[in-house]
């Protein structure tokens, strides 16, 4: 059983940007262009064998820069341990390679991140919206996306809201 930080640092010295550990959870920050090779290395190397991608998650750190992050939560069924790979992306046109060729399970997760954060996964076989309607404008989980679209209704502002509220006809 290899130490994942040592193994990845020796295999990809240029791709490793940072690592930290919080309560036994190891996080490795990887350069965006190397994420596919790092995932493949984690999956196939004897002693690491992180063979299960349990989740891919997007994060918006607005207004920090780099603004977006994508976390890959890997799990090793062989060694019963987890590893988190994290990629930071710029706020302007966030883009990174898709890991679907290594972990097919990433397909829908990456679609979800594309849908809700607007992160583009290059090489994804079918990058469409998955939760929101197809013609949706914007990416709702971004921090600068407006939260609601109707003012909270009270008795004193009922008439004002009701004036603009659409009502269906037959």
């Amino acid at each position, binding site marked *: 059983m290899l130490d994942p930080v040592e193994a990845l640092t020796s295999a990809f010295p240029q791709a490793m940007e940072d690592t930290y550990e919080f309560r036994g959870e190891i996080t490795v920050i990887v350069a965006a262009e190397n994420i596919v090779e790092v995932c493949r290395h984690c999956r196939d190397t004897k002693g690491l064998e992180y063979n299960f991608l349990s989740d891919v998650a997007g994060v918006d750190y607005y207004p920090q820069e780099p603004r977006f992050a994508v976390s890959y939560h890997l799990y090793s069924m062989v060694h019963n341990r987890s590893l988190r790979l994290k990629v930071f992306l710029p706020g302007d046109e966030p883009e990174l390679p898709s890991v679907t060729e290594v972990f097919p399970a990433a397909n829908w997760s990456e679609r979800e991140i594309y849908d809700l954060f607007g992160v583009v996964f290059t090489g994804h076989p079918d990058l469409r919206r998955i939760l*929101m*309607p197809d013609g949706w404008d914007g990416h*709702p989980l971004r921090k600068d996306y407006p939260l*609601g*679209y109707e003012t909270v209704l009270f008795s004193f502002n009922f008439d004002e809201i009701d004036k603009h*509220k659409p*009502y*269906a*006809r037959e």
Partner: protein
Amino acid sequence: MGVTSKLGDLGIVTVRLEDAVNWARTRAMWPMLFGLACCAIEMMSTQASVYDLSRFGMELMRPSPRQSDLMIVAGRVSRKMAPVLRQLYDQMPDPKWVLSMGDCASCGGVYNNYAIVQGVDEIVPVDVYVAGCPPRPEQLIHGIITLHERVKQERITDWA
């Protein structure tokens, strides 16, 4: 029902046409189940034997819009579901009614955000709103009875 006369043993009842039609419409108003969230559980409970919606001629919750008269929208309607709901409403044959069950379907409820339609009346015309989160079966039955009373008031001159 306004029975005006009864002739001997022939069993003929004369009644105004609109009363007879409204009686038929209220006594066999088949609901279309549109369970979207937790309100649907209460709707199923209303249908089940304790509250027994069959007493009001609603034996069948039709999953098909072609065979239903009343659409019970039970639960929050997401923006992605909205076109589906409207299409199913358009597929229902006239006369048709819509009952908005619960706060979420009536006005968006606690979900004042981008994903939820702020009241199903933005998509389809609603006849009766039932408040509650979720409404108890008694409240749903009350809403249905309210709708029945409204249907009984309909006049032949208003029919299209």
